[in-house]
């Protein structure tokens, strides 16, 4: 199942076009974030690096959840409603969907890593910033992928699903920022800001662990949904 999802997301023409757009977006932010000169990495310029990392994180989160929820359809990818009718056990479906979301998020993070590393290394910042930002993006992407997959099975209406999908994204990126400190740190952009500002990585790693746990909860939700759907009269 995971192999099939990844084959569809990576090999289909739409999937490859999405990757190209994603990399071009990162490249544009790379050039926008270049410091005026290598010796001057001021606070304003640090914000430009933050913009690149934030754009990457948002893109990874959106693309992972959009593919999983069916908002961006990749030829050959089986949605949760189809899998409910398959012979796969619910646990396998849940693990497979969560794994495909996590692997796709990691893939997106890794293929953009040369661009991010270039931006970080050009300004002489620690490469650890790129590494921790990648871990955070992969964790948030994995959570978004799992819950996106759950949405694809839970909500049949495309419009409603899309609405809920965007509401969830808004909650992650905007709603969490409105929380009082220290809870606002759960906002991935705030965690990135902390990293870029030279903060210890423990906080952002804690945030990443939270999102990884959220991905696990999403997988459980997928399994529960599959079992519930199969238990309904007329299913299978």
């Amino acid at each position, binding site marked *: 199942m995971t*192999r099939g999802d*990844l*084959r*569809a*997301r*990576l*090999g*289909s023409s739409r*999937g*490859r076009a999405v*990757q*190209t757009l994603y*990399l*071009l977006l990162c*490249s544009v932010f*790379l*050039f926008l974030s*270049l410091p*005026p*000169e*290598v*010796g*001057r*990495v001021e606070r304003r310029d640090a914000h430009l690096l933050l913009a690149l990392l934030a754009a990457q994180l948002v893109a990874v989160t959106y693309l992972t959840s959009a593919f999983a929820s069916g908002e961006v359809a990749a030829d050959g990818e089986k949605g949760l409603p189809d899998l409910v009718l398959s012979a796969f056990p619910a646990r396998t479906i849940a693990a497979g969907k969560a794994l495909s979301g996590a*692997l796709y998020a*990691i*893939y997106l993070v*890794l*293929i953009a*890593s*040369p*661009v991010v*590393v*270039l931006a*970080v*290394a*050009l*300004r*002489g910042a620690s*490469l650890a910033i790129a590494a921790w930002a990648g871990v955070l993006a992969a964790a948030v992407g994995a959570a978004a992928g799992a819950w996106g997959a759950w949405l694809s099975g839970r909500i049949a209406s495309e419009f409603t699903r899309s609405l809920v999908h965007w509401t969830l994204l808004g909650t992650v990126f905007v709603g969490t920022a409105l929380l009082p400190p220290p809870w606002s740190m759960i906002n991935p952009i705030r965690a990135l800001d902390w990293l870029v500002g030279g903060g210890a990585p423990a906080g952002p790693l804690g945030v990443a662990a939270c999102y990884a746990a959220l991905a696990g909860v999403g997988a459980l939700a997928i399994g529960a949904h599959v079992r519930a759907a199969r238990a309904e009269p007329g299913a299978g």
Partner: protein
Amino acid sequence: MALLAPAPSGVAAPGGIVAVTVGFDGRARTGAWTPVWVDVKAPAHGLEGTLTVEAASPAGGPATRYAVPVRAGPDAVVRVFLPAVFHNARAPGVLTLDDAAAGRLARVALPRLRPVDEIVLALSRAPLDGARWRVDAQRAAVVYLSAEHLPPVWQAYEAVRVVVVRDLDERRVDEAQRRALHQWVLAGGRLVAMPSGDDVRALSGPTVRPLLPAVVRVGPRGAIVMRAEAGAQVDGPPGARVVRARRGRGHVVLWEWDGSGPTPAGAAGTADEAMLQPPVPAVPPDLEGTLPAHRPLPVPVQVGTAVLVLAYVAAVRRLSRFAAGGGALGLATAFGMALLAAAGAVALAGAARRAASGPVASVVVEHLRGTEHARVLAVVRTVAAPGGRYVLRLGAGVLVRPTTPTGVTVVTRPDSVDVVGTDSARLVATALGPARVRGALDRAYTRAVIETADGLRLERAWIHTAGRVHPLPTVAGRAVLALDAARWATRDRLARTEPNHALLAWAFSLLESDAILKAHPAWLLGWMRDSAFSVRWNGRVEVPWQLVLVPLGVAD
């Protein structure tokens, strides 16, 4: 009469440091080049090491280090001159002596300085009339110096308002000290020379004679006889005559009478206001404002990076298809390739940082009128990647210092000067070099003759006179150029010009405000890249643009 030599502001001399003299008899202006003389005794195995002044920062920041190499045979005592800039008169800093073989030999605290704004430097066995030189304890002081303590580099006279020569033992002056005095006068220094009673030996020796505007000898019955050179200005009645002349940017004044005695009748009106003015700043303070704002990543680096990024994006499209069809192995390969590309990005960033690091400079080469010399002023900003160590190497004869206390090390060698640092710093450098461009203008301002030495290219040049400018084509070698009356324009109508419009605008305003430059009617300005002013940045040669100012003569 005993020579009024300075009492050395010496300190206890542990290790290999025998004696230290800082400033002119302990007096110095903070923020200006200050002479430091050190007598060093070599250990029994000889000495090959470094003498370093660590000049303390007034705000407790990192010390600026000024170092010179020292060599001496076994047990020999050598005298070392080390120019330094101090910022804290109470605790100027420390002096260290390190040997390559034996490590640290000595570390002594430098003695407290007596700060003054201006120094009247007198080479005289008899005291001068301080009132005539308008000195007071707080602001200015007359310092009586023994000839052997004259600085061997002209920049070290920075705090000196005027040098007064009355008695001078030529045997105590070496060629470097002599040259430094000459160069200082050419660069804007002021010299007053006078007989010592009926003794005029100080005025006929090689140190002072080439600068004087008159030949001086003792005539019959001990009278002083002066024969002024053509063009010199002679004032005052016989017995109280004063002969004045310009030497480059400097002034030289010769008194007929002995300044240690009473001023003769008729000489009262011959006071030289120029000699009472503050010392000329080594570098005009507003020159720093002309530094280019940035040293961006070089365009080839930016284009190369863009091409590589686009190539990578295209490669990912193919890699993605492979990853999709290759199962776990395909995915692992894709991950590996991405990490490999990330490693390449680190290398690319390193190369880009090296290419983008370097000096940013505003360099002015002002030809000194009536001489074969040019005064070189440069403000430099080092652009270094954070944490990246750099060595900026300049040519011999240059003295360079940070504009504000910064943790750099300036190593002065006979053939070069190195500035070693890790963070970006602002520096000022001064030197005297040969004049390599000449020019003349006919009286009707319709024809100019420009000549550059060694095929040097003078690009984007202008003739400036009375606030108006005329553009010139590029000149390499000798060129006779016709000037078009319709092309004269006011300088403020000049379009923005590269490589440094701010510096050009600064130079135009200097020509109209500087008393010495303003006195000359026509100037040639232009950009050149004379390799004589090249610098090395971590071994990489860079030739900054130089704005050359040349006084134009009259062409027949």
